């Protein structure tokens, strides 16, 4: 975008909006009071109709908290970054949920982890942590029970490495703190009551003696321990007979505060941690993080590394989509045979990852400015064999096996419909968005790495139902095979690392948002460096998490059993949802 247009944006956003002039920063600072207006202008007049990410930053030394919004046009192109600065003592900002309903879970997360209040949010409760949790952990002055030092490496490791186990120093029961006037003994989980109240008039969570209880309506908890929830995940469903009136996803059971850990880590140390987000697509996770940090460092990997990156990312997409298809069939009741068929192929792709990176799932393969190592001998022929012979044949076979199956069709067609408008409004990403008729793919909309060189079609399906979300994964696998074919034909020889690999990456101060089209949707990393060895802020825009915002929309009006299918068609991974 030229400067002229940017100037234009500034004036069109209206009074008080100024450019973020801090070194290494971009975007616009918006007065909190005007945020909703500015966002409306951006959406309705400037075409930034897709709110990709909402997050917050604690600038402790300046006494400020900042909310950061990343908006994009679904027509493609660069994004718009809006920021609102708030005093640390009373951070309140108007909620954007009325404009962008996709902000619902994200604003709850910012409230939960940073303690920023969103005025006008319909249901502002904690989302990843529980009600008995003291404080907001991503605040810079909040320390965990096992706190040792602000930044790694910890001094106790060397040269006088005094071995200690932190659990011995801070034993169980001393490792938890509660909010003031909270007693865990005798605590009734009123959060649940609030949760149920959020779903409408039914309170108390059951068919108890509540006079307000309409006997036809009940609340059903799906999960947290349930085979259909793909992990420890809970859905509270309000039912009228068997028809879903409303539902709320409840998550956080696998929460480990990935972001706080990352802010104690050095930049490089975060690489293996990103593997653990969406553990089906660790190569893709590495990719996004490497991009964000490379933006800050201003470096680029050599050609060969770029090709290998794309190769790994596309192989990841294929195996992820194969599993997604398999697990969707699981949720439909075809218990594990389709999954095993999909896994036969997935295993062969994981063999390649293992031979190359050393691990099947926790690849830790990308480095800033390159890759950990080149392809070992004998791997390339295996990839060729897969891409040219086996996978096309096997994908067709899986297609033949399932797609025309009458039960699959009856359970999927016209079920869990997400319209085009709602998909955009709810910030759906990846296959979920594209199956609703929005041809938005980061690889095409804002090409990163060398995706602009490849010939491929953005898969898109018009109906927005479960069947389209199922079919689109086949489409995407075929497109990935097309990209892989080009990668294999063009793969150059050469270096795979720019400069010497360093364990202390020197990252200049500034902010960067690196985003990739991961198999599950747009994966973004918002990284802020202050020039120190550790990032000041590290945020993950997790596609699985944000795609869950659409679950209620997909399920309303359908049967309880369809909730399970809709959830399966979103394809979530709890490692990424809960972070």
């Amino acid at each position, binding site marked *: 975008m030229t400067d002229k247009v940017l100037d234009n944006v500034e004036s069109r956003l209206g009074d008080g909006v100024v450019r973020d002039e801090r070194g290494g920063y971009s975007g616009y600072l918006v007065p909190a009071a005007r945020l909703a207006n500015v966002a409306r202008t951006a959406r309705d007049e400037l075409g930034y109709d897709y709110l990709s990410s909402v997050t917050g930053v604690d600038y402790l030394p300046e006494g400020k908290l900042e909310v950061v919004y990343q908006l994009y046009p679904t027509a493609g192109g660069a994004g718009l970054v809006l920021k609102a600065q708030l005093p640390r003592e009373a951070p309140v900002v108007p909620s954007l949920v009325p404009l962008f309903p996709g902000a619902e879970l994200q604003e709850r997360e910012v409230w939960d982890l940073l303690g920023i209040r969103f005025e006008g949010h319909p249901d502002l409760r904690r989302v990843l942590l529980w009600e008995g949790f003291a404080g907001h952990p991503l605040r810079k002055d909040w320390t965990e029970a096992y706190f040792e030092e602000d930044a790694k490496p910890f001094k*106790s*490791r060397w040269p006088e490495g005094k071995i200690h186990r932190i659990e011995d120093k801070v034993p169980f029961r001393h490792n938890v703190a509660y909010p003031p006037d909270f007693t865990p003994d005798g605590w009734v989980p009123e959060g649940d009551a609030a949760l149920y109240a959020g779903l409408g008039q039914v309170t108390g969570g059951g068919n108890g003696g509540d006079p307000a209880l309409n006997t036809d309506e009940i609340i059903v908890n799906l999960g947290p321990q349930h085979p259909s929830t793909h992990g420890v995940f809970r859905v509270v469903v309000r039912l009228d007979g068997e028809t879903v009136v409303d539902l709320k996803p409840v998550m956080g059971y696998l929460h480990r505060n990935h972001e706080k850990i990352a802010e104690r880590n050095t930049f490089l140390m975060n690489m293996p941690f990103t593997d653990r987000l969406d553990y089906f697509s660790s190569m893709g996770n590495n990719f996004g993080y490497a991009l964000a940090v490379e933006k800050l460092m201003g470096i680029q990997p050599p050609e060969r590394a770029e090709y290998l990156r794309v190769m790994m990312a596309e192989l990841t997409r294929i195996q992820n989509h194969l599993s997604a298809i398999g697990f969707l069939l699981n949720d439909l009741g075809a218990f594990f045979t389709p999954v095993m068929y999909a896994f036969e192929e997935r295993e062969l792709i994981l063999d390649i990852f293992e031979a190359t990176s050393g691990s099947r799932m926790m690849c830790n393969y990308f480095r800033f400015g390159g890759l950990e190592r080149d392809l070992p001998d004998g791997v390339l022929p295996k990839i060729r064999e897969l891409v040219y012979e086996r996978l096309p044949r096997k994908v067709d076979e899986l297609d033949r*096996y399932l797609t025309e199956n009458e039960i699959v069709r009856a359970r999927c067609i016209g079920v869990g419909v997400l319209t085009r408008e709602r998909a955009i409004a709810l910030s759906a990403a990846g296959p979920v968005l594209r199956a609703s008729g929005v041809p938005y793919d980061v690889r095409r909309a804002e090409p990163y790495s060398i995706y602009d060189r490849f010939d491929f079609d953005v898969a898109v399906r018009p109906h927005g139902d479960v069947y389209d979300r199922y079919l689109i994964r086949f489409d995407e696998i075929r497109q990935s095979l097309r990209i892989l074919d080009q990668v294999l034909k063009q793969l150059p020889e050469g270096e795979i690392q720019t400069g010497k690999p360093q364990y202390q990456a020197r990252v200049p101060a500034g902010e960067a948002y690196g985003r990739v089209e991961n198999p599950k949707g747009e994966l973004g990393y918002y990284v802020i460096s202050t020039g120190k060895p550790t990032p000041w802020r590290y945020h993950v825009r997790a596609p699985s998490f944000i795609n869950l915002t659409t679950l209620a929309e997909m399920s309303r009006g359908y049967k309880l059993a369809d909730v399970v299918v809709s959830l399966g068609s979103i394809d979530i991974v709890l490692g990424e949802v809960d972070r």
Partner: protein
Amino acid sequence: MYGLGMLKGLGVTLKHFVVTYLEDLRWIGKRYDSPESLAVRQGSQARGAFTVQYPEVKLPVPEEFRFTPILLYEEGPNGERKDRCTSCGICAKVCPPQCIWIVRTTDPATGRPVPEPAEFYIDVDICMNCGLCAEFCPFDAIKMDHNYEMATWDRLSDKERLLKPLSYYAAIRPNNYAREEAARAEKEAAKAARQA
């Protein structure tokens, strides 16, 4: 016709079922889990279902496979051991979950550090198998092991448990070993040339 899709699908599973036994017939007379059989029946030529009888049979792991770290020592002609580690501390600094503890040796007479670790602990409980320690050790002293069966009573590995002879490393990672030794020899030669 209604049900045709289902029948077609069943055809796929039926084929898969039949092929499994045809494959078994093809390999009849050879050991089910011989290395040749594993290479084909677990690779992209695989057809039908195939079961590896773990733990009696184990799949070979690729050279780059990593599990937990080991420390290497060189064996002298009379069986004496020389640690490769110089306790420089880089691995402890780079380890993401900070599970490496090293105590540096100091010469009691001069109080100066001696390039050898007095103690070396890895809390395997915490180790996330990332391989960064091995990647950044400048002395090729810490490497990632292939052994993944390591049930013990205590998952805190001390130096004794971590140490493995160089020959062990050469056996599990022959290509890496050859490459690294060549680079080391070159470095030595350059150093000798400079001193001469």
